[in-house]
Structures are given as structure tokens and as C-alpha cells.
């Protein structure tokens, strides 16, 4: 990946120059004024400056070596693109799940999050999706409470556990069916699934 290596080393070089001249001077704040005759070593920015300086040198050497040694360029197919988009979706989903914990709480948001991820990963069998999405988070909740006395985020609702389970169950099952319904519709159209299937058959 020669081109890739060149880009990475240029980015790193740029970053180290940027940190040396901008981030380090602005983001290292001393609460006590440092006396003028303090040796340079004792300054809080000494070690980071040294590190960033070496980083710049090594980035240059990476740049030189990636220009000198030619290796085959990889080509990425459509399979790869769909895999990457799946990674991005799962990451964003997890992030919004964590943000939602603050407001909706663990007991309600987790089963929904679990169900979406399982379905995204290609499992469409609701007999497996619903029990996993409900039982596993519930078991974890109980485990953490009884063994470590940890209360997982409760959210703003603070509904009692039994109601949470009932509401969660209703929400989750309707949601799962809806998603599976959507996925089934897409399955016929999406070219990725068709190629997936033919691959499976040939295998």
C-alpha cells in the first residue's frame, strides 16, 4: 500500500508540526507561573515536545521508505465497501446507544440496541433475536447488581424493573418484526445479498 503509506506519513508529519507549534503551546497550561531560571527539563511541555519532535523525524523516515520500496497496491471490491459501511453503522449505533443510556436508561435501550445489531449482522430468525436481546441484558443487569452492587444507568424515567421488562418486551418485539419485515423486502432487491447467496451455494 505505497500510496496509503505516503498519505499516512504526510498526515503524521502535518500533525506533529501542528502539535509542536499550536497544540503544545496552547494546551499545556501551568497553574503556577514557572520561574525564569527553571531548567528546561522541568517545564511540563519538555517531554511532549521531545516526543513530537521524534514523531516528525520518524514520519519523514516512513515517508522515505514508502517512496523507495514499491509494493502492490491493493484493490478493494464492493464487498469491502459494504463491510466498511457495516463497521461505520455499528459504531454510530453503539455511540448513540451510549448517549441514550443517559436519558432512556439501560433496561429499555439495551434490548433494542442488541436486536438492531443482531439483525444488521444478518441473523433474521426472530426466535433467536428476541430471546437473546432480552435475556442477555437482563441477566447482566441482575448479575452486576447482585455481585458488585452496581446500578446500571437508570435514565430519566426511573420506572420499576417489572414495567421496564414489559414495555421493553412490547417495544422490542414490534420493532424486531418491523426490521425483519424491512430486511425481507430489501433482500429481493439488494445485489449484495444475491451475491452472498450465490457464494454460499457455490461453497
Amino acid at each position, binding site marked *: 500500500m505505497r500510496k496509503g503509506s505516503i498519505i499516512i506519513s504526510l498526515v503524521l508529519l502535518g500533525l506533529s508540526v501542528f502539535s509542536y507549534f499550536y497544540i503544545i503551546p496552547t494546551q499545556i497550561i501551568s497553574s503556577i507561573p514557572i520561574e525564569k531560571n527553571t531548567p528546561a527539563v522541568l517545564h511540563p511541555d519538555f517531554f511532549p515536545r521531545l516526543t513530537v519532535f521524534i514523531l516528525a523525524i520518524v514520519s519523514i523516515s516512513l515517508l522515505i521508505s514508502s517512496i523507495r520500496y514499491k509494493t502492490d497496491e491493493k484493490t478493494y471490491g464492493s464487498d469491502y465497501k459494504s463491510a466498511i459501511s457495516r463497521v461505520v453503522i455499528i*459504531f454510530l449505533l453503539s455511540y448513540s446507544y*451510549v448517549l441514550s443510556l443517559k436519558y432512556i436508561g439501560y433496561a429499555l435501550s439495551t434490548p433494542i440496541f442488541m436486536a438492531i*445489531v443482531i439483525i444488521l449482522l444478518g441473523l433474521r430468525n426472530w426466535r433467536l433475536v428476541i430471546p437473546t436481546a432480552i435475556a442477555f441484558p437482563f441477566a447482566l443487569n441482575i448479575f452486576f447488581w447482585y455481585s458488585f452492587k452496581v446500578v446500571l444507568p437508570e435514565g430519566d424515567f426511573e420506572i420499576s424493573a417489572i414495567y421496564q421488562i414489559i414495555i421493553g418486551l412490547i417495544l422490542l418485539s414490534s420493532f424486531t418484526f418491523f426490521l425483519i419485515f424491512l430486511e425481507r423486502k430489501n433482500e429481493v432487491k439488494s445485489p449484495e445479498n444475491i451475491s452472498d447467496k450465490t457464494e454460499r451455494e457455490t461453497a
Partner: protein
Amino acid sequence: MLDQIIEGIMMALTWKAILFVAIGVFAGITVGAIPGLTGVMATAILVPFSFFMPPELGIPFLLGVHKGALFGGSIPAILVNTPGTPPAAATCLDGYPLAQKGEAKSAIQMSLYSSTLGDTFSDIALIVAAIPLAALALKFGPADFFGLLVMGLTVISSVTGSSVPKGIISALIGLLIGAVGFDAVTGAERFTFGFDTLQGGIGLVPLLIGLFAISEVLIQVEKKLHLLSEKPTTAHLKGGRPLKMQELKDSGRTILRSSIIGTIVGAIPGTGSSIATFIGYGAAQRASKKPEEFGKGSYEGVAAAEAANSAVAGADLIPTLTLGIPGGGTAAILMGAFIAQGLRPGPSLFEENAVTMYAIFTLLLIGNPIMLIQGWLLTDLFAAVVTIRQAILIPCILLFCVIGGYIYHNNLGDVELALIAGIFGYVFRKLKFPLAPLVIAYIITPMAERSFKQALLISGGDYTVFFTKPISLFFILLAAVILILSVWKQPKVSGE
């Protein structure tokens, strides 16, 4: 000293401590048995649990995980030809052909015995080497210590990963991440960008969970959908025969050889079990009476690979505990956990916490028969983990990561940090940067900075202090030689 040893042994021999080692081994084997998930990851997601236990229970628990994960990795290697952990890749070569012949059960038993023997060997090496090495390191001044850390980081950056510059860049980024938070000397705030969460530095647990566990999950997600959602086809465990005593005896020499190789390789900082495994496997093939059987289902091959990879478990801890330089990714996590429990690995560890250390050594040894018994009795259970669909396992692990990040300080900010570290780790891995140097550098930053500043204060700001002290000069020269040698070899390995 003798009374300290006895006190340590007594401290270890409580039913609670032994139970926690057993739980750790069980958890380690289970996570290790999940195809494609590494032992480092197993330790990373289980670390937060250890903080709820006192050190004399939390540390044994983690040591159990460390041991168990290395053996657990061989189960999917043998049953589905997918190593649970990268070091188990060599186990696939012979384990899977054996499973295809219907000998999965005996192959797993061979792996269990050789893992246990390799592990025991390296534990003994650790116990023998640790105290003299720590005593030697105690004589080091700040300049010498800094030289040692520089050498350690150089070795780690040069041997892990595909290219030396990438290894060094990874270590330097680790040093910068380690600098976030309050500066120990002046109390200055560094790189906090106005976030309160960052004032105490980037937390160990969110960083580890992100870099090792979440990034791993994201890599697994890339797999083809039908691989994720369908039940894996596994070789049959039922109907297999138990391993014959003769077969174990025949592999005795191989196990010993691999154990020695694994221990030596493991003791060098940064060289993980993957390297040890392939050296051990290669050596066994050359020395074997039946080299033609290797790769086609040789019990000796399984033994060679497994003994070497498990021998790294104990040896990894030699530089970690005595010098404070983690031997590898898992050792870095263990070191972080030690620090969080109030035990600071390094030369003075054996002076300040001698009794606890002897207790830990005792529990390390006790962990081996525990692993043997669990592996023996519960093989079917662990094998069942292999057959669970990945589409179900992955969200469960993701949830575990989220909760692990949360329970660390009951703070959702840590979980967000873990997710960000996760996507960072994912990109880092995709660009073929090794993660181990980053984590090791992150862990040793405070130590490196302190010894660097102390040395220069003593010398009155004279930078030649690192070259005029003989020990420090030796380490720095050694680092330079290693660096030059590994850069020299680079073109042969290709620029990638």
C-alpha cells in the same frame, strides 16, 4: 525472606483465592474459545471486574484469565480451523487435520497437557529469575533506568508489526496519550482540551477496552454476513478417543523444547506468543523423527505450538514485574491492573510487597492444575462456545465492553472515550500499525518522564549523563544496535 515466602504461600492457600483463579481460568478459556477473539481482548474486557476485588483476589483472577485464554484459543483452532487467538494459528496446522480424522478430542487434550506443561515451566522460570533480576535493577540510577526504558521501547517497536517506523510511531503516540492529564512534577494541565474527564489522564480501562476489544469487534463485523449469521460447521467432538499416554510421552522432548523457546522469547519485551509459537513449531519439525507428518495431523505439532504459546504467559511477566516494562499486550494490561490495585511493578515491587508477590507466584502455580482439571472436565462446554453464531456473540461482547467501561468509575464519559479509542484502534490496525507498542508506551510514560527528569536534575541539566554512565550507555547502545539491525532487514520483509 523464608518467613515472607511462607506467609505468602499461606495467603494464597485460601479457598477464596483459589476459587478466583478458577473463575479467571474459566472466563479466559471461554473467551479464548470464541473464534477470532484474542487473549488480550479477553483480559481487557475482564479487567474492570478485578477492580471490585481486593488485590489478593483480583490479581489471581486476571492471571487465571491470562492462562486460560492461551489454551482456549486452541479449541476453535482444532474444531473449526479458525484460531481463537493469533498464537493458536500454528495449532490449526495440525489440530484441524486431526479433527477431520475424528480425533478432535485427543487433539484438544494434547493441547491442554502441553499448554499446562509449558505454562508451568515458564512460571518456574519467572519465580527463579524475578528476585535476582529485581535486585539487580534496584542498583540502577535514574539515568540507567531511562536507558533501560528506551531500550525496552526500541525492542517493542522493532519486533512487533510489519515495519520499524510504524512500531516507533505507535510507541510515540502512546507516550503522548500517556502525557494527557496533570503533569506529576509541575501540576500543569496537559492536552485536556477543556474536558474534565481528561484531567486525570486518559483512563486505562476505557483505553484498553477501546483499543483491544471494541476495535476487535469492529474487525469481526467486517466478515461476510453469512459467516456471521450461520452456525459454524465444526468437527465432531463426540466419538473421539482420549489421548494415549504413549503419545504424550513421545512428545515430551518437543514440549520441553517449546517451553524453553517460549520462555526465552516471552522474556524479551514486546515479543508475543505468536513469534514463540512459530519458532517452537519450526524447531520441532526440524528435530522430529516424523517431520513429514507435520501439517497433516501430527500430535507433536500440536504440542510444539501449544507449549510454546503458553510458555509465554509466565515469561511475559518477568520484565513486567521486575523492570516495569510490560512483555507484551496482555502483560501491559496486567501491569495496568497491578497499578490500579496499588502494586507498582518495577524493581522495588519485591521489597515493598514481597508477601503479596509470593502469594501471586503460588497462585500462578496453582492455576496450572486448575486449568488441567477444567480443560479435562469441561471440554464439551468450551467446545459449545465455538458453535454459537457470531451474530449473537458480537453484540453480547459489545455490550460487555460498554458495561466494562461504565462500571470502572460509574461514568458514561468513560464509555464514550472507550468507543472513540475503539474506532481509533480499528483505523490503526487497518493501517497496519501495531497496538502493543502504543499501550506499553502509554503505561510507562510516567516512569520514563520521571527518570528522565531526575537524571537531568542530578546532572544539573547535562544531557551527556545518559552516555557517561556505563549501564545507561550500554542500554542506549543496545537500543541503537537493535534499531539499525531491524531497519537493515526491512527491505527483505517488504515495505508494507
